[in-house]
């Protein structure tokens, strides 16, 4: 049996508090909804929280070693689930992302986040290859690319980005210099800079200077320059290959006013909701943007806008602080763990939560594109909540067992 007093209650209570705030906000968001079904979302979320807590309890009671040894097996099973969902999954709004069991929808891409965290953690824990070795980088990149490709096929651009974040976080945590990370990410910057030849030229000047100063090795440097050139050159091609909804999201992100009833409408209404909340908020159930349907997707993707409108700056800061507690504790735990696997798992789990936290809130505030990534703990959604609590379970478990190798 565990000694419960030694669990990290700071992280657990922060997570619990966030989950309760989430249920409260979901209730408020759908309180004036037309259907009794929508009004009962908060009850369903409460039920899911119970299931999530059970999952959490199971995770902390299982030995971490079990996750370590079964990581690749779990990864394999998850990959087959991702293939399966493309074949038999149910479709909504042009995306095939879910297995439907009656009223319950399971998204295997959520499970895949956990699987990739575990698999990469295991690989980085035991590999003998030096951090900057090409074989190490290439192997882990391919490992990540497989689920990413399957998820892009659904299609779900936002979720697929989470996997790259896990990879970058673990590359960094297992010793890869940020210089490499910057250079590896540089083709993306090239993609953006290529929109204008002058910007692209300036960008290349900066890139080459950076390469000269950091000297990461001849082959690597050449590879970076070539991929940068290639990415800049294929920008128009990529653009033409993007689905209309992706283009629209990109464009409305750049200029939310261009389509007031499209994706930009959501951003505008979300900003109005949060801004009009002011410092003290309009009060629970009193947010007019929420109550009168101006906020779209308000119990899922835009739950933070409900928070901002009804509880103002202080409510938003409270939630950000609670997330801050979780991230801070996770980094401290990852530093303390003696087991490299445990340390990697904590960083991977924290990276998933941090990325979704930042991109989701950034979207509601209007400085990030609309990606459809849920806000951990707060957004309505059963699998997401269970997964989030499973990740918290791994972090807490790693902390509890920090002395184990």
């Amino acid at each position, binding site marked *: 049996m565990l000694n419960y007093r030694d669990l990290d209650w700071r992280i657990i209570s922060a997570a619990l508090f966030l989950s309760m705030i989430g249920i409260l906000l979901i209730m408020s968001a759908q309180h004036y909804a037309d259907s009794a079904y929508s009004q009962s979302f908060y009850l369903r979320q409460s039920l899911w929280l119970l299931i999530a807590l059970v999952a959490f309890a199971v995770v902390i009671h299982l030995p971490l070693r079990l996750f370590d040894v079964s990581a690749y097996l779990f990864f394999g099973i998850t990959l087959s689930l991702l293939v399966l969902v493309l074949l038999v999954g149910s479709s909504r709004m042009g995306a095939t992302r879910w297995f439907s069991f009656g009223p319950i929808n399971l998204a295997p891409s959520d499970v895949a986040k956990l699987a990739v965290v575990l698999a990469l953690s295991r690989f980085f824990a035991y590999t003998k290859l030096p951090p900057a070795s090409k074989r190490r980088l290439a192997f882990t990149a391919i490992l990540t690319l497989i689920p990413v490709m399957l998820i892009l096929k659904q299609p779900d651009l936002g979720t697929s980005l989470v996997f790259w974040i896990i990879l970058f976080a673990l590359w960094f945590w297992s010793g890869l210099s940020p210089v490499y990370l910057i250079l590896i990410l540089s083709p993306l910057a090239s993609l953006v800079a290529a929109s204008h030849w002058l910007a692209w030229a300036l960008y290349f000047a900066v890139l080459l200077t950076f390469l000269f100063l950091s000297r990461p090795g001849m082959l690597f440097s050449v590879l970076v320059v070539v991929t940068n050139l290639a990415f800049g050159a294929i920008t128009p091609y990529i653009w033409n290959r993007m689905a209309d909804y992706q283009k629209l999201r990109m464009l409305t992100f750049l200029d939310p006013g261009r389509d007031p009833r499209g994706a930009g409408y959501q951003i505008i209404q979300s900003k109005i*909701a949060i801004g009009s909340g*002011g410092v003290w908020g309009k009060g629970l159930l009193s947010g007019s943007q929420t109550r009168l349907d*101006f906020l779209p997707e308000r119990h899922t993707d835009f739950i933070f806008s409900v928070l901002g409108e009804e509880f103002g700056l202080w409510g938003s800061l409270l939630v950000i602080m609670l997330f801050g507690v979780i991230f801070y504790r996770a980094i401290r735990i990852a530093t303390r763990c003696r087991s490299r696997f445990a340390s990697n798992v904590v960083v991977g789990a924290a990276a998933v939560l941090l990325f979704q936290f930042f991109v989701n*809130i950034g979207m509601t505030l209007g400085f990030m594109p609309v990606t459809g990534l849920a806000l951990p703990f707060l957004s309505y959604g059963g699998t997401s909540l269970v997964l989030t609590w499973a990740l918290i379970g791994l972090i807490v478990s790693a902390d509890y067992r920090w002395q184990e190798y």
Partner: protein
Amino acid sequence: MPLSTLSLKYRQATALLIVLGLLLVIVGWLVKLQILNYRELAEQSENNRIRVQPLVAGRGVVYDREGRIIIDNRPSFTVSVVASEAVRDTTIPNLAAVIGLDTSVVQKRLRKNLVNRYQPAPIVRDVPFEIVAVIEEQAGRFPGVSIQMEEVRRYTPGLGSECFTGHVGEVSEEERRREGAVGYRLGSIIGKKGLEKHHDALLRGREGTAYIEVTASGQSRGLYEGKAPTPAVAGADLVLTIDNDLQRECVAALGEYCCGAIVAMDPRSGEILAMTSYPGFDANIFSTVIPESLWQSIMQDTTHPLLNRPISGLYPPASTTKLLTIGAALEEGMISANTTLKPCYGGLQFGNRYFRCWKPAGHGSLNAVGAIEQSCDVYLYQVGLKLGIDLLSQYFDKCGFGHVTGIALPGEEDGLNPNSEYYDKRYGKKKWSRGLVLNNAIGQGEILVTPLQLAQFFCGLVNDGIVYRPRLIKSIQFPGGQQVIPSRQMVRKLPFSSGTLELLLEGLRLVVEGEHGTARGLKNNLYSLGGKTGTAENPHGDNHSWFVGVAPMERPEIVVCAVVENAGHGSEVAAPTVKRIIDVYMNKKMNPQPVAGLSHAEGN
């Protein structure tokens, strides 16, 4: 710095810095939105949900003197668009299709009536219920479309009252910019003509404002509690001096001819009992949007239905002003009651021109009263020569010709009363013949009067020379229950002594009751009728037929002036027309019916 191995401490610090950085970015944006942009975004949030809804004040009802309705309001549906909620390529095409207008027309109307993006801009008024039902049932197809109940002005048909009621319409840009135009918004209803225009401020009342909370899809969630509505104040009701029975008789009487006008007045007060311009038009068509084809057909109608004949129609008064000429000569002492001038043999030689009398056989020798009775032109030519152009013109002037009567209606004409100054200007000094006075003396030539001016003049003649301003308002009933009763307003005294007036009245009596009277066909046993015929020479066609009738002659209560265009002799056409009106009046007077109160009072 080694590239491949980094200390744990370094990694931890970097990780913490990344987290802190990201948290600060979010906090920064929160502060920007919730503190720096708070006012602007809070206002947008309010605009989002609060729709300003004008509470239209009921426009005043207009009654006749016995409380019967002349103008009231009926409920109707108005379809409007709230621009902020409209969806491009959906709202307007769908709406245009269901109401049967061109997309471009709907767009034009939206632009014209757009106050701001959050207020409904009226597109079509008086939409049939079936179309309203479609829009309400399939609300999802019409985002941003809203429906208001509005009252539409209803003019009682068959009264021929549009010459004084006028009509209403949507306020124009120009009208809104006019000085003193307060409280009109785009799409407001404003009086365009007649008393609707003149008394617009009284009739329209004051619009109120309600603040409605709406959902994103535009559904109303009831009154917004943060801002109390300002209630509308209904417009005042008007009770007119008009008698609907007389109005209807006017329309019926003129209906036998092409065109004309009738004015019936009470000489004792200046009250207008009936006034009509024939043919008229249906003032109801202006209450909603007029189809272009209907408008074209009205504009191209050769009988000019839009001409307001009683107050803006200009005609030579012809023989009806012979009383004025004779009165002037009597006043000036140039003739007396028994003066017989050169006898009439069917005409008078003046210079190198022979001026004919209307009766080729001639009237023989007549005195002043006889000349009125038989309307002898030759007698009048001689009187005219005695007076001269300017003296005659002065008398016309003192009798109100050449001046507006001052009736409270827009668009009144003042007519034309020429004197030597006018002729000098028109033909050049000394370039016109003194013979023009012969024409003026019999009411022909350049003199032009409106039927209302002539009626007003006759009112003065039969009212001891006292002339009142013609008026339409008997009382103004304010919504609070107060009422204002305007008093009669004397405008002038005719320049005739009582002796002269007596002689002229005798002439009026003999026109009907005399053996040789030009309107002796109107003589009856029920009441004593007087009057004067006139046949105005019309260079464009048949003569205009005039008659001004007065009854009862012992103590005159009603003066009816009728002109029938292109209809021939006054005695044959206008005189029986006038008698029909006076018959109705005298019949009501002799067989009084119980008079109901105001129609709206009955309902209470």
